[in-house]
């Protein structure tokens, strides 16, 4: 029997996958084969490690060596140096952005030190396309335990005691949701997994499905047992082809083992899972819209009640949970509610996965206990702001959330604190902004998204958001008035109160929170007709400093619209009425004579 003494884990998440991690695996295998090491070293394609900033990632076990930005041609070096000679390949090691020292062991990386991985426990650790590796990590033990040793009521009680709240955004208690669904009598019930991840910059659900698909299948079966459902449906967006593929593989393997299908674990409980594909509409993350989309209808929300727990898919009681919520269920069952409810804060238990994006050093996926502060996440795990710039704000909760500023950095993050601070948890996207970001433009960006994604059913969302967007456009064009700022706020509040579903009710949040926290920037746009961050094109003026200009004509030659005039060896001028603010002249000038004012 071959006895591996080394495992090489190669990240196979979407990010690393698109940077040729497949080729790394093939090259490593070829190289090992050539050196006669195939029976000693095993190469495994895993799910996401979370450190997407520096992908593709290759991790060598058992010495925990963490190689970053590996290219397929590096496979030879890794095998020859690390595997054969035992020397770590220094040039591929991660470098601490502050000290510039290489870090040989992932245990010493700031990025991983502060994390507590429950949902992501198997991501980047097992091969997601091999059910045996999941079983070796106690996979399907929780399902076995509930079917063999617990009543459905006990399962629901356990989840209620754990204090888990739904990770999809609103934070509704999971146990309570299950209880309501279980009490509704019906011949058929459905367990629905909401994998319609739509927030810009959020990719935790995709990573869980790509890295540990069985954990979601197991949790759905547990939920099915608890509420009395025999059918599971995963609503996943078709833009996630890798996640879809891994789910299909996982479902086939689970069926083969009899862990999905009829009479699971020899009991009378039967459960099976099918996939439903979404076309990527943001509103379909809302559960009623999601259900309509699954039924083949338009993805539009309807008024609740009736809640899906009473009348969901095909009018039958349905329980909709988010991917991240489900992925924690097996561990809660195995380790117990009392283990889980000791993690986190008083009202938000457990851990939360955040997708770090924007102007931050360590872009990637992290999991921390609830109650971790923004400062810890951004500066310790995230490695601080890129290029040594100053932190300005962090947008949480995607287009439904708000911007938090420096004064919120030490707030422990949980569902309630974020709402109190004027933002929300959402699905856990975190977009970090530095001093170069114009907050009015940020609000405009998110609003543009909701305007585009609005399903158009209710007037506040369809018309109101459009009008908000127009007002913001006027402001960034330098045509706004102080009255417009009041109008922005009033209209936002009306939309919040009157929109039909969660999309509309939360879409003005980015406007409101930037108005609250960055009023001075709005005022600068309106009164001084200036954009403090220098981002709004129509408020910028390119100007030539006469003292610095030597009349070299370089700028005039590069200008695409002939806005620059002047004789050779004489001071040039820019005609602001013609200038399109492309910045080409500024880039070309060798004498620093062109500035933005």
């Amino acid at each position, binding site marked *: 029997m071959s*006895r*591996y*003494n*080394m*495992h090489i*884990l190669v990240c196979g998440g979407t990010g690393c996958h698109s940077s040729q991690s497949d080729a790394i695996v093939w090259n490593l295998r070829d190289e090992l084969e050539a050196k006669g090491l195939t029976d000693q070293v095993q190469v495994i394609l895993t799910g996401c490690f979370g450190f997407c900033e520096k992908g593709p990632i290759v991790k060598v*076990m*058992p*010495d*925990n060596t963490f190689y970053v930005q590996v290219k397929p041609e590096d496979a030879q070096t890794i095998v020859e140096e690390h595997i*054969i*000679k*035992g*020397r770590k390949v220094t040039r591929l090691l991660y470098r601490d952005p502050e000290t510039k020292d290489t870090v040989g062991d992932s245990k010493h990386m700031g990025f991983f030190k502060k994390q507590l991985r429950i949902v992501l426990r198997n991501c980047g*650790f*097992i091969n997601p396309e091999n059910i*045996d*590796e999941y*079983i*070796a*990590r*106690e996979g*399907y*033990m929780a399902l*076995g*335990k509930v*079917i*063999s*040793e617990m009543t459905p009521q006990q399962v629901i009680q356990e989840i209620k005691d754990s204090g888990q709240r739904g990770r999809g955004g609103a934070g509704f208690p999971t146990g309570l949701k299950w209880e309501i669904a279980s009490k509704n009598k019906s011949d058929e019930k459905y367990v629905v997994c909401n994998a319609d991840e739509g927030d810009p910059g959020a990719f935790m659900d995709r990573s869980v499905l790509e890295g540990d698909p069985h954990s979601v299948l197991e949790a759905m079966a547990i939920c099915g047992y608890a509420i009395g459902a025999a059918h599971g449906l995963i609503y996943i967006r078709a833009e996630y082809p890798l996640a879809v593929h891994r789910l299909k593989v996982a479902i086939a393997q689970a069926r*083969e*083992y*009899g*862990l999905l299908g009829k009479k699971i*674990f*020899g009991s009378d409980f039967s459960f099976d899972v099918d996939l439903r594909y979404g076309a990527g509409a943001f509103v379909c993350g809302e559960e009623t819209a999601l259900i309509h989309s699954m039924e083949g209808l338009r993805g539009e929300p309807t008024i609740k009640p009736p809640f899906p727990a009473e009348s969901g898919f095909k009018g039958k009681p349905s329980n909709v949970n988010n991917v991240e919520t489900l992925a924690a269920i097996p561990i809660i069952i195995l380790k117990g509610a009392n283990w889980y409810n000791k993690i986190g804060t008083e009202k938000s238990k457990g851990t939360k996965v955040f997708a770090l994006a924007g102007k931050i050093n360590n872009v990637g996926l992290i999991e921390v206990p609830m109650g971790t502060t923004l400062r810890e996440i951004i500066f310790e795990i995230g490695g601080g702001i890129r290029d040594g710039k100053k932190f300005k704000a962090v947008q949480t909760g995607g287009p439904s959330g708000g911007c938090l500023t420096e004064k919120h950095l030490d707030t422990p993050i949980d569902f309630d604190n974020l709402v109190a601070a004027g933002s929300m948890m959402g699905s856990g996207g975190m977009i970090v902004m530095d001093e170069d970001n114009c907050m009015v433009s940020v609000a405009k960006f998110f609003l543009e998204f909701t305007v585009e994604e609005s399903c158009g059913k209710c007037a506040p969302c369809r018309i109101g958001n459009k009008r908000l967007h127009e007002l913001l456009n006027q402001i960034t064009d330098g045509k706004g008035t102080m009255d417009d700022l009041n109008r922005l706020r009033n209209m936002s509040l009306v939309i919040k109160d009157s929109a039909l579903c969660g999309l509309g009710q939360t879409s003005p949040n980015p406007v409101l929170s930037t108005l609250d926290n960055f009023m001075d920037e709005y005022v600068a746009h309106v009164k001084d007709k200036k954009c403090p961050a220098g981002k709004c094109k129509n408020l910028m003026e390119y100007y030539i400093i006469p003292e610095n200009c030597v009349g070299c004509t370089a700028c005039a030659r590069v200008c695409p619209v002939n806005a620059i005039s002047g004789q050779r060896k004489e001071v040039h001028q820019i005609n602001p009425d013609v200038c399109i603010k492309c910045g080409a002249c500024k880039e070309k000038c060798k004498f620093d004579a062109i500035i933005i004012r």
Partner: protein
Amino acid sequence: MSQIKSLADLKKKREEIKTGLDLRVKAIDPENHVQVKVAMATCGIASGAKPIMEFFVEQLDRRNIPGIVTQTGCMGYCFAEPTVEIKLPGKDPVVFGYVDLKRADLIIEKYIKEGELIDGIIPVNYETIDSKE
């Protein structure tokens, strides 16, 4: 492939396949396991470090000692190759020189199992920046 029909089936299945993942699981907390590092630079390999490493991998497993066997580069004791560094949980690492199969067996029996030192230890005469942390 046989179907899993009961919790006992699943547990049995898990026992069968668990070892495949052991190496990764142990690497989560290497400090709690016996760590064996075999010097596998050119000089080490030339003096026969490879069979020594295989011996440790095989025998730790056979004797049910939860350990992690890895290779390292040249430790600088080229005169005493093959050299092996053993780190028991909570103790300082100890380097053994002139390790052949017989000595390797002795190292497992005496040092790893009993914590008893045997001849041929190379005194640690350096500090690394890691140890200054």
